[in-house]
């Protein structure tokens, strides 16, 4: 098979076998959910409910009138007990709505999100505007992790013509299998969702990019999409960070997204398979985004699982469903091991962008102090953006914002390939992040 890919990148150990064969189970309905009013990139929502209000599952509880924003919904039926800043998995505190589950709902309540039955979604009667509106009011964001409001991506300016959409089924982060399971178990819903997304941007073609290590998903999606002439499944080499938009567009269509530009500048819109699935639920079942698949995995988890989890469920509840955490020092990470965020506490909620909860024991992570750079150029050969990470990192550390800008530091996608590769264990991407921050501050000051 002729597998496509992009240049550079790395081959970490994938460790997907913890959960790759495990079907998506329903996570029991939690007693309490914490729903942050900002789970997306853009303007935070304002609460639409007050303390003491009764809410039902799927009810819109937060919204704001801004284009780059998206509403949040109650994921359980119950009573609002608090509206206050709560710890947030991306760090810091975020204004959140806490809902206590109502007593007449058991934790075994059935879950139509994980319903295996498919009904054909008829999009012929829908206009692009209908689809965009439905996606917006369902609170859908990019579910690959970045959590960018989907309706914004589906509203390209008129001068940008979109000829293709790419459905991202790479899941190139090690350990995670949520997208893989979704493709295996809900393949047709993803296809219908993708068709709707295609219609929303008036594109003519759908490419579904799947890495070759997901054999079941690849053959199933291929089989189910065979009778849609506008859908083409593209098998990709297994390589990180293939799921990064720019790399995926390069791999699938051999197009370069201009530096500082967006996928739409290359005529493409990229959506995650989870997002396509959510779009199907929004259009067909009128279900807002209140649940998502979360891979709970890693050597520190007693019983790794793929779970359909309600947004707002505390990490500790989800971990308990998987038999708890093993004893010892550990890292609890939201997302995958390459770009995920280490958590300092376990009472943070699952949010729309939570693709996984990964628990690594201390022995699985290297914590040695870094050594001098030996200029092996491993980072240069790994960087998918073709930057010079070892120099950028020094520019970032040492306040050399001019040089940082000259060397194109803002182009860094923070995939972490450089840090992963470095034999001196230097935290390159960390220093580059600092450089980006400093450059932004400097530019704000001079503006």
């Amino acid at each position, binding site marked *: 098979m002729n597998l496509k890919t992009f*240049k550079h990148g790395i081959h970490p150990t994938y460790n997907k076998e913890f959960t790759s064969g495990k079907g998506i189970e329903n996570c029991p309905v939690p007693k309490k959910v914490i729903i942050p009013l900002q789970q997306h990139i853009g303007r935070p929502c304002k609460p639409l409910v007050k303390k003491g209000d009764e809410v039902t599952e799927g009810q819109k509880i937060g919204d704001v009138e801004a284009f780059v924003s998206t509403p949040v919904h109650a994921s359980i039926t119950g009573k609002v007990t608090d509206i206050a800043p709560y710890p947030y998995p991306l760090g810091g505190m975020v204004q959140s709505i806490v809902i206590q589950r109502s007593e007449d709902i058991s934790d075994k309540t059935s879950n139509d999100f994980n319903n295996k039955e498919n009904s054909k979604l008829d999009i012929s009667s829908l206009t692009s505007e209908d689809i965009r509106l439905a996606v917006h009011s369902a609170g859908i964001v990019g579910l690959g992790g970045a959590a960018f409001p989907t309706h914004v991506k589906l509203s390209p300016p008129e001068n940008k013509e979109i000829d293709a959409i790419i459905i991202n089924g790479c899941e190139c982060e*090690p350990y995670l299998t949520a997208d893989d399971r979704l493709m295996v178990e809900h393949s047709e819903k993803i296809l219908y969702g993708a068709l709707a997304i295609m219609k929303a941007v008036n594109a003519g073609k759908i490419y579904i990019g799947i890495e070759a290590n997901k054999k079941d998903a690849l053959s199933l999606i291929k089989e189910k999409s065979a009778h849609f002439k506008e859908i083409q499944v593209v098998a990709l080499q297994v390589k990180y960070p293939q799921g990064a938009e720019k790399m995926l567009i390069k791999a699938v269509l051999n197009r370069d997204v*201009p530096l500082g530009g967006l996928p739409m500048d290359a005529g493409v819109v990229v959506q995650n398979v989870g997002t396509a699935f959510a779009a199907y639920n929004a259009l067909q079942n009128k279900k807002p985004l209140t649940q998502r698949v979360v891979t709970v995995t890693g050597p520190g988890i007693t019983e790794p699982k793929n779970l359909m989890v309600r947004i707002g469920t505390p990490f500790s509840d989800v971990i308990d469903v998987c038999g708890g955490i093993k004893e010892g020092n550990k890292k609890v990470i939201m997302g995958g091991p390459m770009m995920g965020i280490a958590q300092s506490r376990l009472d943070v909620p699952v949010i729309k962008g939570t693709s996984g909860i990964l628990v690594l024991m201390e022995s699985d992570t290297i914590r040695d102090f870094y050594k001098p750079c030996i200029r092996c150029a491993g980072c240069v050969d790994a960087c998918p953006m073709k930057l010079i990470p*070892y120099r950028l990192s020094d520019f970032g550390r040492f306040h050399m914002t001019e040089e940082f800008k000259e060397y194109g530091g803002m182009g860094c996608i923070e995939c972490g390939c450089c840090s992963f590769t470095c034999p001196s264990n230097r935290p390159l991407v960390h220093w580059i992040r600092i450089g980006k921050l400093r450059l932004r501050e400097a530019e704000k000051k001079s503006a």
Partner: protein
Amino acid sequence: MPEIKEKKDDLLIVSSSPHIHTVENIPRIMHNVILSLFPPMGVSVYFFGMNALLLMLTSTVACILTEYVFQKGRKKEITIGDGSAIITGLLLALTLPPAFPLWAAALGGIVAMSLGKHIFGGLGYNIFNPALLGRAFLQAAFPVMITTWSAPLTGSIPVDGVTTATPLSLMKFEGQMTPYLNLLFGNVSGSLGETSAIAILIGAIYLLYKGYINLRQPFSYIGAIFVSGGIFWLISPDKYPDPIFHILSGGVMLGAFFMVTDYVTTPTTPLGQWIFGIAAGFLVVIIRLFGGLPEGVMYSILLMNAITPLLNRYTRPKIFGEVKVG
């Protein structure tokens, strides 16, 4: 609300991503390079006997001790275990004549590590290849000793007295050629580790297979020597040696696979690596044919080391998607 865990062995570790790391580290790379030097080392002992072994031992111990003294004196972490000092010691010894005095080899090791490496701040900060800098010092200080060559022996009798010329000086000063087969197997006079092209290739193939070196640098270096040597040969086949002789004789093989590929002192960008290799290869031929010395590998690499920072600066690759927007 915050649940602070008092138990010290049950903490949550927090750091920025990525949270996993390659198994590679500096000692692992260095130890693999040392392993890849075993074939040329073995051949040198086979052809030049105990003296070869003693030379390698002496210069390596000198390098390790110098590194230790410097790091102790500067109150820095002692890193003699990472293998980089051993590589410098071995590479220095491999470029010395078999009958070279041990005390002078030790001196070479001390200079290599102090002036070549630690004066700049240690591993990763040096400009010149330490082993070659050490050898350049020895060449300047002991010009006779370093050009006194012994004939190869196929036994372990110490080499004394029997002096002969290297294939390069035979070519340069007497217009005499050495058979390729001898150059391949190393059955010629020359520096310890430079005589056998096959032994060096075995080590190089191991490093290439492991991914520790790339082909760009050795290929461009050898290729440039082949092409520029070939041009002179075509102009005047009687006066100049053929390009294959250029490649197989002297330090070209060792230099191409173990010194032009050095991480610290050569460019990091692909284009820079090509330029480095081509320019250094061209210099080898110029020095060999028109310079006062029969061999040019050492100076070709040292000269290019000096402009490596410049090459890094001006050969920055185009960033992905770096085009004019609109």
